[in-house]
């Protein structure tokens, strides 16, 4: 990190770390337990599909692979946005923030498409314990991504108003931490829920 911000953040705190960043990491530690609970619920229920479709019947692996890749790449653009701002490159910062938000939106769009397809194939929210658990888990993740997009757009607005400067790059870093966390949760979900072979009817 550039020298000015190295001085202005975390100076004078007991650990020498910025309060805000520490807060975000503490929060992410807590989030692990939230997603852990939802993922476990899904795992317990994935073979309890009642009379409805089974996960192995309806998952569209190629499609989800593409949207997973989109989200993974949004992590790259996020880190590039931060890196640009740390250099004081406001313009590229905006470009990458916008790209990240758009990739995130693309992922959400993919999720909406996936959900509607599943609905059409007979997997409603109330169809079975499996369906409830699946929609709840991926829905929670989707809401996290959406909140991330809102935060990114807020940063972008802030940047356009000229208040998102090099000295405030820590804000972008903290939003970035959240964004990457949401990404690693999806890395987990993608493997455990989609790629590990699911039960079929």
């Amino acid at each position: 990190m550039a020298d000015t911000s190295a001085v202005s953040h975390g100076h004078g705190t007991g650990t020498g770390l910025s309060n805000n960043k520490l807060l975000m990491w503490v929060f992410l530690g807590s989030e692990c337990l939230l997603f852990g609970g939802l993922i476990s619920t899904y795992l317990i229920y994935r073979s309890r599909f009642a009379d409805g479709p089974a996960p192995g019947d309806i998952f569209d692996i190629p499609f989800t692979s593409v949207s997973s890749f989109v989200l993974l790449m949004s992590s790259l653009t996020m880190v590039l946005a931060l890196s640009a701002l740390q250099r004081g490159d406001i313009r590229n910062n905006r470009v990458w923030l916008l790209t990240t938000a758009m990739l995130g939106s693309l992922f959400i769009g993919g999720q909406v498409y996936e959900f509607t397809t599943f609905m059409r194939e007979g997997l409603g929210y109330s169809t079975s314990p499996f369906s409830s658990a699946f929609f709840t888990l991926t829905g929670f993740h989707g809401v996290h991504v959406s909140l991330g997009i809102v935060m990114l757009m807020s940063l972008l607005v802030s940047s356009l108003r000229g208040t998102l400067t090099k000295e405030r790059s820590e804000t972008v870093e903290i939003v970035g931490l959240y964004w990457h966390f949401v990404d690693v949760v999806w890395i987990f979900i993608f493997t455990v829920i989609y790629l590990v072979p699911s039960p079929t009817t």
Partner: protein
Amino acid sequence: MSTVIEAPAGEHEGEHDDHPTDRKYVEVAIVLGIVTALEVATYFVEMPGAVLIPMLMLMMVFKFFYVAAWFMHLRFDSPMFTKFFVTGLVLATIVYATMLTVFEFWHKG
């Protein structure tokens, strides 16, 4: 962040001592992309579960920690942050794995 400086990124060039260059980030992303491609490839290849599942888990863990280390800067940042995150992660893993065990999840497959 005075503790940060000790771990430079390896191939740093110029002004940024403590953070990798954009090029490095792109390289990391390429590696992640390749591993993802390998993961997806398993879907198209027939193999027994005893091979497939550990392989998938291994790749997942790699990606997980690779993102955390590079994009979330845990590699360069204070170990304190890592501790918080890993505490949550480990606690969640142990507690929920125990819960799944009590549900006899592993036997039912």
